[in-house]
């Protein structure tokens, strides 16, 4: 194990994949300035700065991906993806299908998001659910340095377009990363803590809140299982259903706004496929249905906190007991 930030883990993943495969290249607004070590190793043709134009960055990635390259594009912050939606959704997401399978789009779009930088809703908007709802795309949102590296490597190797979200609050916090080749498969959740009374499902920064809540709950004799989805699409239904069948209670947590957030998909799937196992209402804890403010105090309050998660878990466990004795 070595210790590094997710930001550096991303750099390492890029370097390793570029070494392994000459068709991998990366471009974006400033990536060549910020990652000059990669320019030094791979040359200016494979790490490129671009004009300030997200649409053509994403479109160029899609055109290149369909014709033999494996581009990684840095689109900076998630709200800027709004300028690249046609290229990501209509081209990369649909032209494989509409062409009857003539093309594939092995590309990765990186975008930062989430509370942590105090710059407001035009930089901080958790839109992973948009992309999960867009056929043809995969969606990744890691919580650990090791996963940033391992999932990015898998995303680059995947033959589908991947929207890869970077939670800014995590990006510069050092964590452990295994030495040597480290690849994490897409679509597999990580059970961060096993438990038997309640299942906490989350991804990105709120996984930390779930772990803190689980700690608190443990002290009270409540055993919480914490699942980190890591990949939002395809998501690991199996792992979540197995856990809920064991615990009978589900709390879903994410920073994205609650309404039509990805937590709804998780809750709905469980309400359909593990209904009989449920011993309490499914609870979602999520950001409010509001843009994120810049003001530090408001930005922090937007994110579901460990206390609230523990509270929801407690209620679920209590309610289930009432139901069981009714």
């Amino acid at each position: 194990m070595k210790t590094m930030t997710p930001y550096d883990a991303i750099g390492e993943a890029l370097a390793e994949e570029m070494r392994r495969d000459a068709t991998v290249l990366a471009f974006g607004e400033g990536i060549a300035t910020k990652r000059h070590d990669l320019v030094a190793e791979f040359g200016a043709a494979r790490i490129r700065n671009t004009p300030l134009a997200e649409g053509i960055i994403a479109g160029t990635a899609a055109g290149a991906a369909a014709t033999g390259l494996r581009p990684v594009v840095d689109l900076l912050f998630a709200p800027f993806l709004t300028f690249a939606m046609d290229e990501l959704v209509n081209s990369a997401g649909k032209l494989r299908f509409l062409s009857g399978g003539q093309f594939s789009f092995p590309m990765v779009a990186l975008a930062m998001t989430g509370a942590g930088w105090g710059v407001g809703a035009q930089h901080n908007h958790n839109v992973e659910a948009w992309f999960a709802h867009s056929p043809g795309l995969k969606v990744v949102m890691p919580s650990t340095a090791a996963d940033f590296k391992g999932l990015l490597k898998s995303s680059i190797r995947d033959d589908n377009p991947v929207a890869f979200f970077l939670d800014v609050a995590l990006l510069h916090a050092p964590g452990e990363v295994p030495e040597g080749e480290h690849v994490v498969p897409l679509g597999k959740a990580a059970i961060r803590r096993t438990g038997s009374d309640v299942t906490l499902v989350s991804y990105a920064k709120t996984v930390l809140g779930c772990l803190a809540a689980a700690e608190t709950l443990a002290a009270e004799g409540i055993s919480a299982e914490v699942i980190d989805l890591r990949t939002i699409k395809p998501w690991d239904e199996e792992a979540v259903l197995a856990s809920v069948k064991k615990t009978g209670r589900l709390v879903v947590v994410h920073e994205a706004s609650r309404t039509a957030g990805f937590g709804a998909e998780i809750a709905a799937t469980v309400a359909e496929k593990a209904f009989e196992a449920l011993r309490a209402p499914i609870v979602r804890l999520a950001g409010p249905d509001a843009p994120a403010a810049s003001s530090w105090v408001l930005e922090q309050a937007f994110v579901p906190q460990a206390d609230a998660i523990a509270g929801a878990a407690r209620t679920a466990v209590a309610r289930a007991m009432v139901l069981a004795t009714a």
Partner: protein
Amino acid sequence: MQLIRSFEERSAASFAEGRSPGTCTCVGQEASAVGVVAALREDDLILTNHRSAGHLLARGADPGRLMAEVMGRATGYCGGKSGTLHVSAKELGVILTSTIVGGELSLAPGVALSVSMKGGDEIVTCFFGDGAACEGIFHEALNLAAVWKLPVLFVCENNEWQAFVHRRETMLTDDIASRASAYGIEGRTVDGNDVEAVLAAATEAAAKVRATRMPFLLETKTYRLRGHFEPDDQGYVDKAELASWKARDPIAALRASLLESGALTAGGAAAIERRVAERLDAAFTFAADSPWPSLDELTTHVYA
């Protein structure tokens, strides 16, 4: 050109009889398609748009498989999933067709980037309309291709219409090619109804792109003689304008000039029409007799 014209007219007639879905025909624009495509090498790549039949047929597409695609049949170029509006035929080098106006512009630089990174000397031709030239992605695509020195021949088929809006309602300038200078690249306007002129201009432009690896913006001035999408009664079209362009029909003009020069005889012209008709009879029969896709296809080709 005659094959394209007849294909489109039959397609419109077939729609009118309820035997196939509506399409965006390129009637009136055949010289632009044929002139440009004839100027390209076989290994050059082409991106087109919703009005693609001319580009595809000029590139040698099988009219049977093309009509089958329009009809949504399993034997079409895209297995019926595309239908008329996004027909790609990778085997012909006609790729990544998008019906999003501007989609072709967003994708072309990336295709040219692949060519560049592989070190090939192919060029990429991107057909788009005067309407697409109003989309922001036009600006972004030309600029990126210029800055990154990508070998894209941008061909704007300026047919004076953007669906139900006249080009004059959408821009103050007359030419689109003159916008090239904003990106530091070359541009040129050519009479898009004169196939010889288009061929000459496209040959020169393609040679420049191939040699310099820099983009070039070629504008072919032409006109959409049928409506936007079948059915379209063109009630909103100025009659004098339409008539003046009908008088400049590119196929009639070519026929007249070939007959006059003696390169074509009346008998030869009739023979061409007959051959085209026979080919299209077979094509439309093939398409109509082709099976529908199986319902499994609902979810195939979504993920690789």
